[in-house]
């Protein structure tokens, strides 16, 4: 489903990713762990198409399409979803307006009918209930004045509405208490399907108790330095990242 080959990325002339490879098959959940500043968010932004990240080499394909040649909104239409580490506030824009416009833009691009206000509300409310969100969250401005936990739930709500092919979750666990963590994990697990894949970026092993990954990768020094099963996450939790920071002897 997602294939990343020899990806090199620089920001302001500084190399962040160098020779990053990853292969995520349909229905798989891959976890990417790594120390702060190792380039995890950079990876997610490059995949989503944010400006300011120079791809100096490499290829990325989603379902055989050249992802890097597409505009961010085209990537979204193709099924790529990014749950932001820091969800963005949009003052004055009601969350409901934003979610519906987003959903309809994606549905339109996928050749589906757009939802009217009633259909949208029905769909959103059903999902919000599962995420423990109240109706009030639809009236408030997008992420504006939301607590950390509310923002992350709002990201997961969008993910469940947009039903992506590939969802990237960038530290969705950070800032969540255990209850919220469980709700968010339930949201993700409820979406798991044979034709849907996840890249779960996290700094801590904790989340992976709830979202059990097929593969775990350690990102350090611009590339994946080690891959393994779910045990690798527990190992890293014990030993820390220090070993991975120094160049291999």
């Amino acid at each position, binding site marked *: 489903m997602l294939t990343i080959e020899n990806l090199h990325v620089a920001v302001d002339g500084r190399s962040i990713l160098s020779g990053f490879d990853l292969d995520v098959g349909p229905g798989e959940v891959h976890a990417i762990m790594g120390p702060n500043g190792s380039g995890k968010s950079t990876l997610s932004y490059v995949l989503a198409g944010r400006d300011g990240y120079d791809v100096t080499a490499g290829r990325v394909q989603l379902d055989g399409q050249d992802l890097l040649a597409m*505009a961010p909104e085209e990537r979204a239409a193709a099924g790529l979803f990014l749950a932001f580490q820091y969800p963005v506030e949009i003052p*004055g*824009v009601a969350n409901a307006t934003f979610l519906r416009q987003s959903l309809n*833009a994606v549905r339109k691009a996928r050749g589906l009918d757009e939802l009217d206000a009633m259909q949208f509300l029905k769909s959103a409310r059903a999902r919000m209930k599962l995420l423990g969100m109240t109706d009030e969250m639809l009236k408030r401005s997008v992420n504006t004045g939301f607590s950390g936990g509310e923002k992350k739930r709002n990201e997961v709500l969008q993910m469940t509405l947009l039903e992506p092919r590939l969802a990237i979750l960038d530290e969705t666990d950070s800032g969540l208490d255990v209850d919220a963590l469980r709700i968010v994990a339930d949201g993700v697990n409820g979406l798991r399907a044979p034709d849907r894949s996840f890249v779960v970026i996290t700094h801590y092993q904790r989340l992976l108790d709830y979202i059990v990954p097929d593969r775990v990768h350690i990102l350090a020094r611009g590339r994946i330095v080690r891959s393994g099963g779910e045990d690798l996450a527990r190992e890293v939790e014990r030993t820390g990242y220090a070993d991975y920071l120094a160049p291999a002897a």
Partner: protein
Amino acid sequence: MDSAVQATRDAVEALAGEKYKYGFVTDIEADTAPKGLNEDIVRFISAKKNEPEWLLDWRLKAFRHWLEMPEPQWAKVSFPPLDYQDAYYYSAPKVGKRPESLDEIDPELRKTYEKLGIPLKEQEILAGVAVDAVFDSVSVATTFKKKLEEYGVIFCSISEAIQRCPELIRKYLGSVVPYTDNKHATLNSAVFTDGSFVYVPEGVRCPMELSTYFRINAAKTGQFERTLIIADRGSYVSYLEGCTAPMRDENQLHAAVVELVALDDAEIKYSTVQNWYPGDENGKGGIYNFVTKRGACRGRNSKISWTQVETGSAITWKYPSCILQGDNSVGEFYSIAITNNYQQADTGTKMIHLGRNTRSRIISKGISAGHGAQTYRGLVRIAAKAAGARNHTQCDSLLIGDRSAAHTVPYIETRNRTAMVEHEATTSKINDDQLFYCRQRGIAEEEAVALIVNGFCREVLQQLPMEFAVEAQKLVAISLEGSVG
């Protein structure tokens, strides 16, 4: 939702997305005065309208005064000097007599209004909007007059009002904006051809939104409407004007005057959605929108609230103001101004606090894209007797791209030590994080800009009557087309 409101929305929706959707010209036989401006033209207009002697005298005084007046120079806008002799000052659709019912209106004219999405049909009237439509210079239809008459509300063209209630006109015309006020207003006083008149009697809450649509159709025609609204003691009225004009290469002058008078405990809410032709991407053509709007809160506890959405015109020059004479009176100014391509806007308000405990609130949202340039220019003046006066001003500017400009020029004059005046101003660029967030969610860049800008303007959009808020949001989107990428 109400079917008429829906119909209006659908009409707008159908048109949304086009470049300038009102750029068609209607083929109508017009009754036009010779080109140029002189005393004979003033007499011609007055005679056409069968006006009383005093009004002709007033016009002539204005005209003579106008000849001596310099052009206003304070605004931060630039344009070649106006050639007043190269324009027509009177152009009326030829319809013989004034239509008695909507069916009598020239079908071509009806079509024009349909294209504009203006509800003239009876069923749409049920939406609770009474419409007075001013075509070039003459009011062609005032709908729903009967219902208003039951309440004693007079809503008609100002020409008709001059015949029907000359005492009111004589008492109030020019009482807020005197004919000596400024060059554009003085010209209007000399040559105004039509406009709307509203009188709401004592204690009456006007049962529906009143609305006028202005349209400039004929080439080289100036439009000089004059609107006068009087809210008698304890009354309330909400009034909305919308404006469009066809695409033309030359610049056309629109110099309107609006006067509002609110007596004791009365309230006037005046909303404008101005979408005159803004000129093309290279700044060719477009309307010069030089407008004088002023309201007098004459009575105690009276209130005047201006809301404007200014998306059109090549140049906008207007400062809807409030003179807060009555004790405890309240003035409000809510403004959205958008300048894209080569549009220029110099707009703001004046809040003149004369009475005790008078309050004013100013919220201005300026959005500049392309080579657009705009200035917020505001004056808050607290007179010596205005003990306890309060003002709060908030001016936010949003820049899109790196060739647009925004300026804020607030003047504050306080002569009373008990007054409190607060001014906040921000200038920001459209936020890349917000844009990327929207695009990651599948919303294309241009739509994302419109969404973010609508959010930026929300406090002002909320002030508009419901039916028009939707239209205004679409207009915001349309006027920002081509501003990114």
